[in-house]
């Protein structure tokens, strides 16, 4: 009888391995464990077993039955689980297809650079002011020590509306407007559009400047150098070389052009920097006493510095843009890149 029970177990296991459906497994269960099944028929022969062996045989039969029963349950559960997985797998998506939803909007590169510059200068205590774009000759030129008939007006070709009304050629008139209204200390920046009748690959009839002005007691040329050096290192990196070079602006004296080491060739000389290794990046200087006179400041008591920079120029260097006209062409393929 022991052999019979052990065989039953082996046979059933064997058949279960070949069973792939619920139905087939149920058939196996009935065949071996059912009321008319193999186990039952083996147990019928219990009577012919020696009485002292009967309890052991009975115990063995129960063990076989329980084990087989458990085994069948687990095969059934496994089958159910894999059936469910199969169903989910059939619901598969192509996860490589692009996701839904429109592209993110972008800011114009001029806005990006303006925001960055204003942010750095704001951290130095400069607050932002604005002025009109259609400006009076007085504010754009005369109050800035550029009398009519003065050759310094050649430095800035001008769009005129009438004889005394023009499109501002720089953001400097905002200096005058601020100082007329406010007593020192004054520490302001004026970002905005400016206009000059010039159009080619590196000149746009409309471009953007940021003007800075700092007036107080004891403001020095050293402060000008320090402030602008700090600023340029923030924009172009700590390693950037900076130099201050004498120049001329009618509304500052002493005046300085500020150059940085060419970011394209690191100063070796290239097409972008005209082989000089330096790039002119902003104009600056100590506010000319004539300007203070025009706004009623006492130039013995107060000194100050002013500077102006071209946003397009910095954006072109920053992003490697070689044609200034791209900024106003607004081609989607350009705008998308920022």
């Amino acid at each position, binding site marked *: 009888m022991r052999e019979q029970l052990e065989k039953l177990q082996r046979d059933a296991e064997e058949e279960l391995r070949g069973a792939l459906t619920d139905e087939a497994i149920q058939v196996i269960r009935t065949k071996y464990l059912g009321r008319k099944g193999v186990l039952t028929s083996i147990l019928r022969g219990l009577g012919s077993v020696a009485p002292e062996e009967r309890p052991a045989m009975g115990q063995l039969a129960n063990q076989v039955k329980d084990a087989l029963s458990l085994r069948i349950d687990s095969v059934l559960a496994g089958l159910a689980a894999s059936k469910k997985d199969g169903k989910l797998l059939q619901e598969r998506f192509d996860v490589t297809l692009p996701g839904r939803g*429109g592209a*993110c*909007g972008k800011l114009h590169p001029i806005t990006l650079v303006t925001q960055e510059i204003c942010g750095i200068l704001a951290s130095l205590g400069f607050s932002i002011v604005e002025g009109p774009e259609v400006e*009076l000759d007085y504010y754009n030129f005369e109050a800035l020590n550029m009398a009519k*008939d003065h050759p310094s007006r050649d430095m800035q070709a001008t769009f005129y509306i009438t004889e005394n009304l023009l499109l501002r050629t720089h953001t400097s008139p905002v200096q005058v407007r601020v100082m007329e209204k406010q007593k020192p200390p004054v520490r302001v920046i004026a970002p905005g559009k400016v206009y000059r009748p010039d159009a080619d690959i590196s000149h746009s009839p409309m471009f953007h400047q940021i003007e800075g002005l700092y007036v107080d007691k004891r403001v020095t040329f050293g402060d000008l150098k320090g402030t602008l050096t700090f600023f340029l290192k923030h924009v172009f990196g700590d390693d950037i070389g900076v*130099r201050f*070079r004498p120049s001329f602006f009618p509304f500052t004296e002493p005046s300085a052009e500020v150059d940085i080491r060419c970011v394209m060739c690191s100063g070796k000389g290239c097409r972008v920097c005209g082989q000089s290794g330096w790039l002119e990046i902003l104009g600056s200087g100590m506010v000319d006493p004539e300007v203070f006179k025009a706004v009623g400041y006492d130039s013995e008591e107060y000194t100050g510095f002013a500077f102006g920079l071209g946003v397009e120029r910095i954006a072109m260097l920053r992003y490697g843009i070689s044609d200034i006209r791209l900024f106003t062409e*607004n081609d*989607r393929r350009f705008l998308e890149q920022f």
Partner: protein
Amino acid sequence: MKVSLRWLRDYVDIDISPIDLADRLTMAGLEVDAVEEYTPAFTGVVTARILSMKPHPGADKLHLLEVSTGEQVLPIVCGARNMKAGDVVALATVGAAIPGGYSIKSSKIRGEASEGMLCSEDELGIGPDASGILILPADTPLGVNLIDVLELRDTVLDIGITPNRADCLSIIGIAREVAVLCGKKLRYPKIAFKESSEDIRSLTSVEIMDPDFCPRYTARMIKGVRILPSPKWMRLRLEAVGLRAINNVVDVTNFVMMELGQPLHAFDFRFLDEGRIVVRRSREGEPFVSLDGKTRNLNAETLMICDGRKPVAIAGIMGGENSEVKEDTDTVLLESAYFNPSTIRRGARFLGMGTDAAFRFERGIDPEGVVRALDRAAQLIADLSGGTVSKGHIDTYPGKVDVSGPITLRMKRVEEILGTEVKAAEAAAILKGLGMNVKKEGRGVLSVIPPTFRVDLWREIDLIEEIARIHGYDRIPVTIPPIPAPGDIHDRKREFESAVRAALNGQGIMEVLNYSFISPQSADALALPESDERRRFVRIANPLTEDQAVMRSTLLYGLLETMRRNVNAGSPDLKLFELGKIFIARGEGEQPREVDKLALLLTGSRYGENWHFQGLATDFYDLKGALENLASCLRLAALRFVPDTTIPYLHPGRAARVLIGDREIGSLGEVHPDVIGRMDLRNRAFVLEIETEPLMGRADTAIRYREYSRFPTMIRDVAFLVPMEVDADRMLSLVRETGEELLETVDVFDVYSGKGIPEGMKSLGLRFTYRSPSRTLTDDETGQVHGRMVKRIVESTGARIRGES
């Protein structure tokens, strides 16, 4: 200005490289834009003497020569005729390269050996003369490289001279700067010449009718000149600085202008009626033919140089054709004058003549350098043309030229401006080096008189700049000014604009930047009526093109143009915005109104063409939604939209005015099909333009949390059948107006017309959500409130109820 180093070395020794020199000048405010090396395009040409010369036995036109380079004697076959035995000539030796890619080889010409070639100026590319070979002065050393003998190598600096530095518009001016910067001595040219016994005052006279315009006029006369090409040294110098050599008189006037900065003019004396000079203003409309052959119409403000009867030159700008020096000129009247800078500037601008002379006069020349330049030119003309200078010069000086008197310079002030101390001794040395008269006035105080050629130095600050630039900007230490405690750290406008940009970017809308000037045609393109203020253009007097002739009065035209360019470039799906100013003209000569605006444009497919959404076009509600989202992001009170059929560039059935509170801020809608057609836009587009300033103060920035209800909602959906023209807003307002406390929200959940709905009607599905803050609502309670709502709508609008749940 171009500066030849060969020429510069006539006045100052330079022992640093051209690159170093350029760097020093640049760092002293004379910006060197370019350093160009000039080397002739030949090699292997040396000086040699012709020892003997005889005809070629086999050819009539050739000669057989023996030439000596000092070391060897060579046979040469030569076709030129202008040489003779004993002449020193330019010999291209075997192996030499000459322009045009030729190299000289040992050869036999008609059976005779030739070990080289004698060259003309033209063949060497160093001059125009092709008539014969180049003959050098007899004392020229032999066997020496021709490039060295003729000093043909040069370096030219191109220097950007700022408008204040009139004194640097000459070689001597640059030499003066170089001398100071390099610690060298400046050498003025020596001026010495013989005069005849005939006094100029017996030959001519100068009368100045307008001393304000012409404070000073000086003249000399040179008789018996022979007009010839200038010698090589003169031509080389003029050509190096970009001037064309003409003849030995005209070249001298140009040479001295470049050398000393004083423009000069030479008249052929025989053409001066009554043999005298009168300086006066021209008459309005008077015609005059200038040297360049062009007829100029003068105005009453133009200063003219005249003879006894007629104008002969436009003062300080250009001479006249009627008195110019010609090949047969014998007597020259030489002019050296000081003209009022503004006079010359106005004249040159009026006539559109930016000449080298005008450029210098309008910036201001040295009023005390006038006679020196006159004498220098007289010397050179006499030297080069063989003429004789008449005795004396005329100096008519009725006007007054302002020159700077003593300036007090406080060393303390130098330190206050620069932030670093400069010792009085150093300052004095710098200023003296620049030609100033410096005296000590007291402790730390100097009294300084600038030289008359420094027309830019009047004030203490001018001197401080001079000290700073020569001392060196790079030697001024860097300091950081104290940063003040911030006052108001909020920049409302900047923060508002950033929030607008972020909210629009978040909705996939891209920022663009258009020109502020547009075409005046824009008003017609947008069909603006005559009365529309957007036709009150600010017009540019001198626009670059007619397309950019007026300041924009709307952002929309630029956005639509941007759309057209992109559509044409293959990008039809666009979501764009622009923040910027528009301009509305006020009175003549008055500044216009400048208004900050925001504009949006949507066109093409909503999400771009992709596999999710095919043919899903952007529509009105995308645009409106974008604005509503913006308002929500900015925490603005609800915007109101009022249908408007009269906005000229918008589709009359798909347009609305936008209001915030009672203030109208702009409009939105679908672009009118006529505008699409006129502007060749191809596709439908949706635009809005609003004023931004009214939005700024209206954001609800004081955020207060409100308790929300923890009890469940009761929802009732009703489909109303209403006439097409009943707008949703009307129905919603009716409900909201009740102020019913239990009504939490009411929304449109369905709009339907078509099959199953009578013609001219639509079904509008409203969802009513009821909730109490304090209890769970019962069916009955909800039913009563809801019944009142529905009844109100039905009674007010005549709506029928199509279904309810």
